[in-house]
């Protein structure tokens, strides 16, 4: 390509996330599931070997998926394909980039590979999405090169309460930052453990410089619509679809509820006759070491 074509610029990396807004990204473990997701109106799929609910149930170390599976899913659908690398595992990320996935999720759902450092995401052409539970965490990930942020929630539970807590925390911390005077932003940056320039930009614009999705525990059309009403740009649904009674119908219903998130009549209508939702686990019943949201630093 000629030099006039500028690839992998921050704008190009963040730009794909802009195009996913108002949409639903679905976890899939087979090409068949990927096709169901695409047909239901997903804007992207996350290619995985096990959905978070199964990672939780089966235990053990969770790693990047088999490249064969990722290839098969890329070859099956026309929408963007994302895949997960372990926190700090830059070689898994290199492998995923060489497979030409469209986005890498540096994810707490997999077992961390580095308990100190996250991946230096500026070194990659492929954009990254990272999880966050609060504004400081989101800004640290953006500083490391993340082109999209998602709330962590508590993956694989079907319990939306943690996702609610995280999106509310991030947005309320942004509002608090915007209310601060210029001189107070230096201390705010120290407290958020994030660079002053980025903190100042967020205070000024009143928003993150990247797209903010919600993930972790979304299982119903009403869950998705609630996240949108709280201010999310879009929704990730993990175990919620393919661990339910009728995945195709539930996937399509969540897509519709995400678009008409402020129209209760539409949400009611799409919620009818979906069959069983995933059984789920209450986050409060999870012993602390099994809480994935606490991974990441």
């Amino acid at each position, binding site marked *: 390509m*000629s030099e*006039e074509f500028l690839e992998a610029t921050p704008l190009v990396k963040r*730009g794909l996330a802009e195009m996913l807004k108002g949409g639903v990204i679905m976890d899939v473990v087979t090409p068949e599931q990927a096709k169901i997701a695409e047909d239901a109106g997903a804007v992207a799929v996350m290619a995985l070997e096990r959905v978070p609910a199964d990672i939780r149930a089966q235990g053990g170390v969770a790693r990047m998926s088999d490249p064969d599976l990722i290839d098969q899913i890329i070859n099956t659908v026309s929408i963007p394909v994302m895949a997960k690398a372990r926190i700090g595992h830059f070689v898994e990320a290199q492998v995923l980039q060489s497979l030409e*996935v469209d986005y890498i999720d540096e994810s707490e759902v997999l077992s961390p590979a580095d308990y100190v450092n996250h991946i230096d995401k500026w070194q990659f052409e492929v954009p990254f999405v990272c999880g966050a539970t609060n504004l400081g965490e989101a800004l640290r990930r953006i500083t490391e090169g993340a082109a999209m942020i998602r709330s962590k929630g508590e993956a694989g539970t079907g319990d939306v309460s943690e996702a609610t807590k995280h999106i509310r925390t991030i947005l309320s911390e942004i509002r608090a930052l915007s209310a601060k005077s210029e001189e107070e932003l230096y201390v705010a940056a120290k407290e958020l453990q994030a660079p002053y320039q980025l903190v100042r930009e967020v205070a000024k614009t009143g928003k993150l410089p990247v797209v903010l999705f919600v993930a972790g525990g979304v299982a119903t059309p009403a869950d998705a619509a609630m996240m949108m009403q709280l201010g999310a740009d879009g929704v990730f649904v993990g175990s919620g679809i393919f661990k339910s009674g009728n995945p195709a119908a539930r996937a399509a219903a969540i897509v519709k509820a995400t*678009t008409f998130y402020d129209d209760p009549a539409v949400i009611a209508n799409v919620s009818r006759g979906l069959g069983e939702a995933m059984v789920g686990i209450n986050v409060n019943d999870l012993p602390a070491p099994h809480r994935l949201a606490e991974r990441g630093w």
Partner: protein
Amino acid sequence: MRIGVLALQGDFREHQRAIESLGEKAVRVRTEAELAEVDALVIPGGESTAISNLAKSFGLLEPLRNFAKTKPVLGTCAGLIMLSDEVEGAIAGQEFIGGLPIKTSRNAYGGQTHSFEADVDFGGQKERVAFIRAPKILDSSRAEVIARLDGAAVAVKSGNLFGASFHPEITGAKILHKLFIQAVRENQTK
């Protein structure tokens, strides 16, 4: 003048902002009733499979086709695909609005690692835009080409319909929106 932005999925807010920065009113359109209230429509970037699916589910395809017969419509990226008469790489059952007599190929520039920024040429005037998993215009012989990149057509016009492979709305580019607003004005005085 009220310009609608189809807000089923995608970066509709950026298009609203682009239109408002040029001094015109922009409103979101998700239903047939909202469509009836606007003088023109922008179909934003997003995933064309999702936009098509939602338009079909909520009975918007026929109203959109009728709208495009008489009113100005601009489609960027996914919006260009929605307006194309012929689409390569569509998924089974994917339906379009059509109206632009062109052939388009979905994601033909490649996956995300091949997305890029570039200066496109609007008849001598250059402007920086973004191509994100962009569609390619394979045949523009029956439309008027309004922007080129390396000689290839990347934005076209036919009657009251405008389409572009790229996103002017995320780089702050203005030429395409200006041309469109001018066409909306002309359409109103007809």
